Structures are given as structure tokens and as C-alpha cells.
């Protein structure tokens, strides 16, 4: 279902600036307070559809490899505690310690209750129109389980 060798549209190197997660948190608070959760969700969906169009096109074509590689590349860069289990019927990303969530918690003390919507909504939008669903289950503070499986 997935291998390590497919090309990625966005591959980054160099240093990592984790404080950007703090700006994401501020942004979520700002948009939700002024325009509501639906507006924030729609922006996350645009990120999933328009920024990650290459991953989405692969998923529509039945290819999960770029998304799996994307997960590995960026969770490694941010030194998260996670693993990815690739099975016959599903691919499961288990995040035990999300660097983004914990960085924001350390930086400002308050993590938006909508912080993890960035993951859920972006995943949903990337999978839109594809044979796959990507479900995101928040399992605790800074932890989640993301599952790619074929739609019934």
C-alpha cells in the first residue's frame, strides 16, 4: 500500500522553527472568535485541497505513499514520538507526543480547543473524492491516531 520512495511535492531541510505553531494557535483563536469555527474549518480544508493538491491527487489515484512519506518526513523533522503501522486494510499513524501541541502548551500555556482541527480537517480535505477516508481520533492532550482506510 505504501513505500518510502514516492516523490514529495514539499520536502524541507535546514532548521525547524517550532514557534510557528504558536502563531497557528493565535491564528485559530483569532479566526474562531471573529468568524466562527466553520470559517476556520473551511480554511483548513483549503489547505488540504489546494496546498496539498499533490497528496490529494495521489490519494484520488489510489496511492497513499506520498502522504505516508509526508508524515514520516515532518514528524521526524519535529522530533515527535510516533509510529506508522502499514497493514493490509489500513495505515495507522499513532502520535504519542505531538511536538506542535506541546510546544504551544509550553510557549503560551493555552492550547486552543480547535488546535487539532488543523489535522482533522486537513486530512478530510486531502481525502475528499478519493477511495480513502482519513479519520483523526484525538486520544489525549497532544496525542492522536490517524487512520487511512478504503471507504466502504
Amino acid at each position, binding site marked *: 500500500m505504501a513505500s518510502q520512495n514516492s516523490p514529495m511535492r514539499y520536502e524541507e531541510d535546514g532548521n525547524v522553527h517550532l514557534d510557528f505553531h504558536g502563531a497557528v494557535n493565535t491564528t485559530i483563536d483569532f479566526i474562531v472568535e471573529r468568524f466562527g469555527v466553520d470559517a476556520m474549518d473551511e480554511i483548513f480544508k483549503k*489547505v488540504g485541497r489546494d496546498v496539498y493538491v499533490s497528496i490529494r491527487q495521489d490519494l484520488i489515484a489510489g496511492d497513499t505513499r506520498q502522504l505516508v512519506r509526508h508524515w514520516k518526513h*515532518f514528524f521526524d523533522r519535529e522530533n515527535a514520538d510516533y509510529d506508522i503501522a502499514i497493514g493490509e486494510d489500513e495505515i495507522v499513524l499513532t502520535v504519542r507526543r505531538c511536538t506542535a501541541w506541546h510546544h504551544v502548551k509550553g510557549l503560551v500555556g493555552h492550547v486552543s480547543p480547535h488546535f487539532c482541527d488543523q489535522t482533522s480537517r486537513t486530512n478530510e480535505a486531502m481525502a475528499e473524492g478519493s477511495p480513502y477516508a482519513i479519520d483523526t481520533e484525538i486520544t489525549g492532550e497532544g496525542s492522536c491516531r490517524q487512520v487511512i482506510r478504503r471507504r466502504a
Partner: protein
Amino acid sequence: MIPSDHFTRFYNEIFKFLETQGEEALEAYWLAISKNQERHILDLIQTEGLAGMYEYWSHIKIEENCDMDLDFDEDRLELRMNVCPSLSKVLDNDAAPMERYCDHCAGWIGPIMDKTGYHMVYDVIDRTKPQCVTRIFKDPAKAREAEKDAKLLMGWPGHKLG
């Protein structure tokens, strides 16, 4: 998680949404980001002045992988961005860039300079190219003089141009 590496592409989508809501919404957002950034830079400026700014942007230069020259003396700090990683990523993007993407930098830095009594001259040069020059002065007269050399001068909330 939207990776921190991809923050600027997310930022770009936020700007595009806010632009549809009007200038006031965009400026209110820059001010919210400015407030957020105060926790990283305000104390440095208030305690160390231009040297504190130099320290902050020296750190940013490394952590955000900027191709940037920094120079300061007792009168002013100059940031010469040769290749801005933020706009570069927004241009290397499957989503369309917001045409005024560069304006956010003046939008968050300017209010902090106003608050701390410094005078910024932010020359974007060309919004389609990832380069700019920012000069921050102690003396307002020197700032006004430097504005004359700017190719595309930026204003910010509370400091409108012309």
C-alpha cells in the same frame, strides 16, 4: 499537524480569507500576530534596544533559514533579506499566493516599533520577489530621510502612508 515548515502556506490561506473580509479584518489579524510576537521580542527591545533586535533577528536568521544580512550601529539596524524563505515557500506552492503577502511583515513589526519608540522604514522593493530591506532608526528624522530611497514603502496599522 500542519508542519511548522508549512506555516507560511497556511498563513497565505489566512490572508486570502481575511482579504475577502476587508482591510479592517486583515489589520486586526496583523495586530493579533504582533501581540503574539511581543513575547519573543518586546523584552529584548525594551532592555537592549537595537542590540536586542539584532539578537532576535540573528536567531531568526538561523532558525528560519534566511539568506539575510544584518547590520547595526548605534543609530540603526538594517535587515537586508536576500532570499526570504517565507515568500519563497508561498511562491513555491500549489495554492495561489496572496498578492499582498509581504505586507504582513510590516503589519506585525511596525506596531512593536511604534510601541517601543523606534522608527521603521520597510522597503518591500517588489511584492513578487523574495527580498526586502528593513531599517529601524532611533531618530525619526533619519527614518524620514531613508524613506526617500525606498522603492516600495510599506505602512502598517497606525502608520498609513500618503
